[in-house]
């Protein structure tokens, strides 16, 4: 018995020394990586059915954005910031079905979107939004893993975006909390919570599902106005002249 004990212990210790090296990573963490595309119909979806709980000033803007259109379905093009070459921003881009790629490293999770080639960076090191950090379309995001879920807090959003395609306005006080979880090998679920003490009368929630697209690539996409940029460039229409126009304008529309 004693003759086998020491070799057994040594073999077990050697085995333990080999295992972690063979695995090549230090601790399990949910793998959200891959190229994902929102499920369901429509290139862009609303985040909810019906009007959100808006304060009076915001409700007035929402109604103006929807004027003449089926309620809860769409917002007016001529009031939509995206038509003016601005990006969707957070959270609107999460309701579109153009794909995004999630790349995870030890210190951050980046979401690389096809639409406008924008990117979100989610810091995992617990850093706070710096004082006087400029507001942005994509916001400032920090995240932490909670079991199988990545919990993300986003603030520092500018107020130029529509929250979704129905034209929901928000202020710079908007905070978005997302719980991202891989519900199945090819399914990502994100539960959203929207809080805006200046624009909303209460927080409200939404959920979207995304499907893994292992054979898709993210394509380059400059933005909605690329045709206009190229048109004006070819015509050498310098931005200081009155010639700066869209192809439609040139055709006399």
């Amino acid at each position, binding site marked *: 018995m004693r003759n086998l004990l020491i070799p057994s212990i040594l073999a077990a*210790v050697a085995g333990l020394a080999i295992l972690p090296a063979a695995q090549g990573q230090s601790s399990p963490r949910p793998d959200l990586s891959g190229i994902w595309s929102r499920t369901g119909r429509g290139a862009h979806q609303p985040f909810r059915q019906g009007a959100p709980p808006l304060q009076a000033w915001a409700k007035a803007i929402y109604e103006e954005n929807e004027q003449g259109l089926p309620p809860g379905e769409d917002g007016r093009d001529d009031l939509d910031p995206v*038509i003016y*070459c*601005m990006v969707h921003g957070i959270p609107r881009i999460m309701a579109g079905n153009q794909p995004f790629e999630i790349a995870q490293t030890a210190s951050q999770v980046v979401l690389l979107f096809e639409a406008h*080639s924008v990117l979100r960076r989610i810091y995992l090191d617990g850093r706070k939004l710096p004082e006087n950090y400029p507001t942005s379309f994509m916001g400032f995001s920090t995240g932490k893993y909670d079991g199988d879920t990545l919990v993300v807090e986003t603030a520092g959003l500018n107020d130029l975006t529509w929250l979704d395609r129905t034209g929901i306005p928000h202020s710079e006080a908007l905070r978005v909390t997302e719980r991202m979880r891989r519900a199945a090998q090819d399914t990502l679920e994100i539960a959203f919570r929207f809080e805006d003490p200046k624009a909303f009368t209460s927080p409200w929630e939404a959920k979207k599902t995304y499907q893994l697209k292992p054979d898709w690539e993210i394509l380059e996409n400059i933005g909605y106005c690329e045709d206009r*940029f190229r048109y004006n460039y070819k015509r050498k229409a310098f931005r200081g002249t009155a010639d700066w126009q*869209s192809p439609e304008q040139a055709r006399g529309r």
Partner: protein
Amino acid sequence: MSIRFVGGMLVMLTLLGSAPVLLAQARPDFNGVWTRTGPRPNENFGEGTPPLQAAFRAAYDENRVGLASPAEGGLDEMDPVIYCLPHGMPRGYASTQPFEVIQTPGLVHVLFEASQMLRRRIYLDGRKMPENYPPTYMGFSTGRYDGDTLVVETAGLDETTWLDTSGTPHSDSLRITERMRRSGPDRMEIAFRFEDAKAFTRAWQDSKAYQLRTDWQLMENTGYCEDRFRYNYSQKVFKGTVDWQSPEQAAGGR
């Protein structure tokens, strides 16, 4: 069994066990935020006039009409970036704005702060550029590790970009080979080789050096013309009207 023999076996087994970790660490690490080195780095590639074929030399001269010094950048009104188009490849690497490298198995992402945060994907799985792949501002890049160097080949580039700030034109036949390597604890060098059978009389090369910035973050940059987009949006100027203008135009100026 002697203790020494068992001890030797244990050491050997532990070393074998850690070998995969050591081999994995031999791949060069380019992760992080990088900026051009030097107090006032030149935003051009190469010295003086590049070796351009006749028609492209004419375009280069047109981009530089009236400029006194070869060090000056090309004319604004001829520069695609002024029209809200991206810097693209390789111009982003000559910019003074930072870029970030994120290495994942199978892909290296390079994220540029300049130019709407446009980014490159460098495929490491040996895939070829697909047939009829549309030309893009960043091109189609494949790379492989060669010891301490990442060697990258890029093709499929859109001809609309300037190769650099001086106004160097190129065609969609431009091919770029880069050799990226860490040259110090916080340094990286990229050796660029430019070939363009339609635009250049010969292949030519240049090297740029970059410094790691551990305390820098890339800031959001949604485009050269963001001020114009915001202005027209705040004025509710719909893109179909002739009122689309910049704040300077509205002020009656340039």
